[in-house]
């Protein structure tokens, strides 16, 4: 009976038009299932048995990607309720906490997935290091990985400002203050003042759009956090995965 229903479905015109292959219960359709899907074709059709060993990869890179997906989904959800305006931002978060259905759930998920992503990026990097997977011919993919690590940290940091509470305000103030100490282009950095950099034109001013953390800083961090950096991460992720396929998996032969 179930078999009959299944056959009805997988042999229907709709199923075939969507998936363009039969149900993957044989080797041919298993191959088609991977390489005719835009989402799955990031995988090879077949992998070495040893590449599946959990004690080699511990799935750390995959978990990092999954956390990034959770962050994208919960982040977009949160954007519906958030206004990047200093007079409203904090109240929006309060609403998420006390008024909006599922607000706490989404905010907590976003927060801890972000912590988790930082942690798992580091764990993944450590795994890659310990197995020597960064060595030739995979040197460049390690470099891409470091770019992704830095992007993860900057994403976390820009997101830190958005709730507009004391924690956010002062953590970003301290961080932005660091930028003013940049040699050559910061007002407080070595050779900065000599080169004509003042509080109104140096790198910190560029970062904050002002001399202190205010409305301009909030909108800058908001756009960076919600649009620019996720796009950058996505592009580098694509390169990262592409290069795994091109350079080959490092695992035991």
């Amino acid at each position, binding site marked *: 009976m179930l078999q009959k229903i299944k056959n009805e479905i997988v042999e229907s015109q709709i199923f075939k038009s969507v998936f363009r292959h039969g149900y993957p219960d044989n080797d041919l359709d298993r191959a088609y299932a991977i390489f005719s899907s835009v989402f799955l074709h990031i*995988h090879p059709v*077949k*992998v070495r*048995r040893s590449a599946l060993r959990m004690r080699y990869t511990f799935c750390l890179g995959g978990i990092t990607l999954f956390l990034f997906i959770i962050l994208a989904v919960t982040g977009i959800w949160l954007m519906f309720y958030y206004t990047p305006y200093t007079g409203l931002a904090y109240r929006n978060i309060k609403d998420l906490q006390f008024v909006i259905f599922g607000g706490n759930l989404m905010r907590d998920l976003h927060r*801890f997935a972000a912590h988790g992503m930082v942690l798992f990026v580091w764990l993944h990097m450590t795994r890659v290091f*310990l*197995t020597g*997977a960064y060595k030739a011919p995979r040197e460049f993919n390690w*470099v891409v990985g470091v770019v992704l690590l830095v992007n993860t940290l900057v994403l976390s940091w820009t997101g830190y400002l958005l709730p507009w509470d004391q924690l956010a305000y002062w953590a970003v103030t301290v961080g932005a203050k660091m930028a003013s100490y940049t040699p050559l282009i910061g007002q407080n950095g*070595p050779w900065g003042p000599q080169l004509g950099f003042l509080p109104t034109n140096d790198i910190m001013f560029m970062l904050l759009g002002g001399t202190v953390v205010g409305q301009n800083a909030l909108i800058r961090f908001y756009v960076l956090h919600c649009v620019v950096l996720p796009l950058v991460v996505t592009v580098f992720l694509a390169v990262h995965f592409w290069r795994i396929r091109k350079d080959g998996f490092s695992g035991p032969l």
Partner: protein
Amino acid sequence: MDEKVTREIFPRDSRKSYGLVELMKKTAPIVKKEPEDTVYVWPNLLMIEIICAILVTVGLMVLIQFEHAPLRSLADPSTTPNPMRAPWYFLGLQELLVYFDPWYAGVVLPGMIIVGLMLFPYLDVNPKGVGYYTYSERKFALFNYSFGFAIWWITIIIGTYLRGLDWQWYWPWSNHLEHMNPALVTLIPLHLIFVNWFHVSEGVGKLFGDIIFIGYFALGTIIPMIVWKPMYKAMGLWRYLTFSFFFLSMMGVALKIVLRLLFNVKYVLVTPWINI
């Protein structure tokens, strides 16, 4: 036939739009392994990925039952919290502000960490240890990675648990509500120590500091070149110099932490423009 032989017989030619992929003596699509032991990604790998995703989701769901995203009072530019802590992953850098000036701890050092990490595959010339966990075949590489991240994590732990009001050192059993007397610790630049010890002028004291600073990098570069000649030969001059600079800088961070915590040394190198 390995790749080199193939390239010799059929050299790559930019005038041709086609190329021979590879010549092999085997019948399997994977070299150096027979019989072929590959499996289909559907369902073998996809199942693992789905299980991982479910476990992560469950883990997060359990976690947020016990811990919630923090929200303090509304941002107030006129009230500075004390102590003011960066997010945990930046606490290491914040802690380094105790030991170095902000231009170094907050800007140059993070930049060097990023560049150093990126250069690692190009500086590590040891071909062994790809694709499996090993300590004995790559002791030195592992030492470098572990040492760097030991500093990273230890400073994070110090910043999280051992720093209190005014970013002073508080033990877990200290009274965290009472301000410490900052006069208890007086930081002195190294050259003033020399001035006191040897009764030389301040200029000569600074010269000693410069000599120690430059000597550290010069000797730290030259001595391994002579003692570990095979390593130097394997790396080549420029790769070795790059590695040496990053290695000594990393060790220098640890040395400076020790000098500061045990001997209250503020600066080693003192110049009119920068102090380290």
